[in-house]
C-alpha cells in the first residue's frame, strides 16, 4: 500500500493505492490520526487505486470519522471501486460516510 498526501486550499487530500489489510492499515491509521489530532478538515480520501480492503481498513476509517465528529470535521471518501463500495454497504456504513463518485465532487467547497 502506498499513501500520498497533498495540501488542498482547505484540508488534506489522501491518495491510497494497493491493498489495505491488517498489515498495511496501521500506516493508514497513523496518517489519519495525525491529521485528526490537528483537527484538519475536510480530509478527502481518494480510493481509486485501492484493490482490496479488509475489516481493519473499515475500522480505521470509522475511528477517524469518530475523531472528526468531535470537532465537526468532514471525512470524504471518493472513487470507490464496486467491491469497496459493496463492503461499505454491507457494513451499513455507506450512509454514515460522505461518499463521492469522483475526486472533483469530493473537492467541491474546499
Amino acid at each position, binding site marked *: 500500500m502506498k499513501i500520498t498526501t497533498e495540501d488542498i486550499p482547505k484540508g488534506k487530500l489522501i491518495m491510497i493505492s494497493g*491493498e489495505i*489489510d*491488517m*498489515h498495511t492499515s496501521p500506516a493508514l491509521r497513523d496518517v489519519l490520526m495525525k491529521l485528526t489530532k490537528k483537527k484538519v478538515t475536510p480530509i478527502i480520501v481518494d480510493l481509486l487505486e485501492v484493490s*482490496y480492503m*479488509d*475489516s*481493519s481498513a*473499515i*475500522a*480505521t476509517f*470509522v*475511528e477517524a*470519522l*469518530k475523531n472528526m465528529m468531535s470537532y465537526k470535521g468532514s471525512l470524504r471518501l471518493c472513487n470507490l471501486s464496486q*467491491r469497496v463500495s459493496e*463492503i461499505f454497504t*454491507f*457494513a*451499513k*456504513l455507506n450512509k*454514515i460516510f460522505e461518499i463521492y463518485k469522483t475526486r472533483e465532487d469530493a473537492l467541491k467547497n474546499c
Partner: protein
Amino acid sequence: MNSKTKHIASITIPSHPMYLSMIRAFIEKLLLLIDTPPSVIEDIKSGVDEACSNVIKYAYNHDYTKSIKVSFNCSRSEITVTIEDEGAFSSCLDFKGRDLSEVRPGGLGIHFIKKAFDKIDFKRVDDTNRLILIRKIKKTTMKPKKKGRQKIRSNKGK
C-alpha cells in the same frame, strides 16, 4: 474439468500479517482455475483473510513466528477451506460481531466470514485449531464450458 474433479491445494504461511496478501493471491489463482465467479472469489478472499487475521490476533496473540496452514478442496459445486493453527484455543464460532447498525471500529471480520461461507465448523484436534469453511457454488453462476476444441483468441490489437 468434469463436475467430479477435485482440486486440492494448500499453502502454509508464517503468522505475520504481511503474508496475508500471499494467501489472497493464492486463492484468486486457484479459484480462477475452476471458473469460480469473480464475486465468489472476492467473498472467499475476504472471508479467509479475516479468518487468518483472527488466528494471528487471537490464537497466536500476535506471535509472528508461528505458521498458518490453509487448505482448499474445490469441486464445481463446493469450495471447502480448512485453516489450521497451533495457537491457543480460539474459535470464531464464539465471536460475536458488532451489530451492523452500530458505528464503531472493530467487530466486522466475523460478518465477512459469514458472508463468504454457507457453513462454518470448528474443531480442536490435539493442539490444533481447525476451522472449516464451506462455500456452495450454484451451478447457474458458473461459466458454461464449451464443448470440443476451443479457439485460442489473441488479445493482440485490443
